[in-house]
């Protein structure tokens, strides 16, 4: 009858069937459609880049776990390293050389997560840490975008030379036009004095179905939004951060566009181009580095959106999502310490209420 228990098991004795691994798996499932569309759009080099980034990310994690003497296998299977690598791969230029993916993957898991002590304790979003590091150290490779070449169309590189592109870099002969993404295009044009109205005339029009150059994850805004909506339905993420971030980008863009259409891009282009959609649904909503109260998440999202728009409009780098998310990650502890839910029986500042009959 009795079962020897050195330490008694505390209540509650039942628990949910949910687990960290299942959460990561469903986020990856929501991300899959957009990624597959990206593979189809950019051909084999994109697939190889994705594979290399993810495998190096998991390699970095396994190495650190082994270093600290912990079992690598169970931790790898909760999928957090895989998800980090995936998010990084999706935000890279599709035909980037392999060592960009490798260095990014290692940087993400080693310096982005494991150095802080593993899952749940990193202060910054590991994927964005790696992307910003790559953007700053290898600006050329990180802004070499490629016009979309559907997988099985004639001009697309086959299986083998796709691999050669990733390993040795795109041969000059290939006519895949290395053109800047819309944001980069707009910025370079503006710096050359052309104002937006003329330069936008010839630029490829950003569409929901993603026909313009950009990183794998950026192009299919519709599929990303669908993935995001699915995650909200499954209650994986709440609507606060995506809504606030997209509003944070759209509102200033709309206002300034109304004021001076020549100098400022309109809200639609801002939302559909660059990493806005990917950032809002998958990157800013990372549990570990975003505030844990709804009001805090609204502030966090609005901050991300606003900073993205500010960096895109005035700062040197064309894409602001990565920097904005990192900056807001650094503010998360302060947001959390000031924005707390109202405790039952206490007022907002935590002082007990006065009993009223």
């Amino acid at each position, binding site marked *: *009858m*009795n*079962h020897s*228990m050195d330490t*008694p*098991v*505390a*209540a*509650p*004795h*039942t*628990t*949910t069937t*949910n*687990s*960290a691994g*299942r*959460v990561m798996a469903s986020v990856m499932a929501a991300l899959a459609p957009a990624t597959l569309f990206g593979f189809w759009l950019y051909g084999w080099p994109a697939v190889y880049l994705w594979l290399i980034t993810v495998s190096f990310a998991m390699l970095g994690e396994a190495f650190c776990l082994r270093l600290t003497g912990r079992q690598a296998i169970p931790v790898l299977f*909760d999928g*957090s390293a895989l998800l980090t690598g995936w998010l990084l791969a999706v935000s890279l230029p599709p035909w980037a050389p392999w060592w960009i993916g490798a260095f990014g993957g290692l940087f993400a898991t080693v310096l982005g997560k494991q150095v802080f002590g*593993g*899952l*749940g*304790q990193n202060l910054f979003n590991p994927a964005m840490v790696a992307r910003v590091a790559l953007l700053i150290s290898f600006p050329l490779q990180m802004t070499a975008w490629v016009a979309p070449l559907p997988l099985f169309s004639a001009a697309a590189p086959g299986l083998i030379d796709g691999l050669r592109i990733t390993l040795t870099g795109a041969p000059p002969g290939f006519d895949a036009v290395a053109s800047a993404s819309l944001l980069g295009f707009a910025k370079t044009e503006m710096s050359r004095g052309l104002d937006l109205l003329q330069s936008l005339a010839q630029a490829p029009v950003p569409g929901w179905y993603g026909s313009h150059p950009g990183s794998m994850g950026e192009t299919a805004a519709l599929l990303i939004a669908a993935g995001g909506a699915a995650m909200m339905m499954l209650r994986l993420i709440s609507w606060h951060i995506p809504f606030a971030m997209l509003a944070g980008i759209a509102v200033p863009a709309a206002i300034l566009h109304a004021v001076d259409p020549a100098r400022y891009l309109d809200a639609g282009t801002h939302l559909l181009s660059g990493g806005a959609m990917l950032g809002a649904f998958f990157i800013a909503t990372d*549990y*570990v580095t975003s505030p*844990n*109260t709804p009001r805090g998440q609204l502030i966090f999202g609005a901050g991300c959106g606003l900073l993205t728009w500010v960096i895109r409009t005035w700062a040197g780098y064309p894409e602001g999502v990565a920097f904005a998310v990192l900056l807001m990650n650094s503010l998360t502890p302060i947001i*959390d310490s000031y924005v*707390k*839910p*109202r*405790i*039952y*029986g*206490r007022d907002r500042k*935590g002082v*007990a*209420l*006065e*009993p*009223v*009959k």
Partner: protein
Amino acid sequence: MGLFERIFKEPRWGVHPDDHKRPAADVPLRLLPPPARVYMPLHQHVGGAARPVVLAGQKVLKGQLLAEPQGNISAPIHAPVSGTVAAIGEVTAPHPSGLGFAAITLDSDFEDRWIDTARVADPFSLDPAEIVRLTAAAGVVGLGGATFPAAVKFVLGKRLAVKSLIVNGGECEPYLSSDDRIMRDHAGQVVDGARIVMHAIGAIEALVGIEDNKPEAIAAMRIAAAPFPEVKIMPVPARYPMGSDKQLIQTLTGKEVPADARAAEVGVLVHNVSTCAAVHTAVRLGRPLVERIVTINGGAVAKPGNIFAPLGTLVEELLAFCGLKETPSRLILGGPMMGTPLLHGRIPLVKGASGILAFDAGEALVPAAGPCIRCGGCTRACPMGLLPLEMAARIRTGDLDGAAGFHLTDCIACGCCAYVCPAHIPLVQYFSHAKGELSARQRARLRSDAAKRLAEARIVRLEREAKEKAEVAARRKAERKAAKAAAAAAAAAAQPEGETV
């Protein structure tokens, strides 16, 4: 509940575990054959333990007083069976530590003879103080699990002029259905008990909160409460922990009990349905609380259901009566969300035990705890609006004051956070450890402060005594000097007379 209520009035907090109440809830009540030996613990309630008034070997009748209350918050203990007092010794307590506590062992003579009890025809003609005395004498305590002496709450309710009594038929814990059973079978007793309590505290209305996953109970209670307009049956959304008093008060009356105040200070008093029934039997029939309905459930139980058993029966006997499919992997007293794990079966049934669960291997599986991924699920589930992940992180690193800064003392240990945590972190164990550690530190601080005051008082005493001794010595020296001087003066005076003559 219309769609509107469902979206806006539906409370945000809490969890929806699947309640495993059927089929145990539907099985009719069974009577436990009188056990051969019962162990009545002296400390089955909140407050001071009771003091035995019987001697070993003494013959007692069923319902006779075994131990009287001590201090202003306490409750008496009565004999659940007629027989002889075998011993007053130690028995294992229903507590995770496995430590023992004092209990009176009775050997039953199987005659089940009651003491002669004074029946009261019309309790509403009695003076409220009389009802309080009868309830206290009968040893009625909160049977929902809190086991706070009911009479003390009546006095408090009367003093603070509480206007509405809330009868808690929530029973939101999965597996348990003892309140459900008492509402279905003895709805009349519950309503009558509630009206007696209203008379005792001077309340004008009684709100009976019943979760809407117990339709039969709601129907039975509506029939019983039909003739009395002041007793209102109010179904509440089924959601754990709706049965917790602060949440039920907020759902039924919209009032919030302030953090360090008692429910009575906002004009509300909460009593469990079984407590009301016990008040009914105590006042109307004059019979003390010696037996109760207890749910026996869990994967390892062959015929789960509710049993009407005398208090003090061993858990082993209750499980044997219901039959066991396999050796239980874990025994739990109470529900799965807040119940205490029992180390073995030789533990007596106490007043606060609403259920005994025998889990099989599947139900008892404890998944390994992973790292916290800060998903915030626990902050959404917490009915008190706390931040379990922040508190647990600080407790893990040993910063208990930091956790206390997040108002750890407001945590009602309902278990919602640990239930929804995808990393299966034992959050409630962290909080129980921290609360225990903080109160231990506070006790140590109290002791060291007392020691400091005692040490300082002793030193002041020693200084005073030294000063007094010095004064006495000085005074005596002065007297001696004065005496010597006087003697010398006298001698001098005497001598000149000699010379001048």
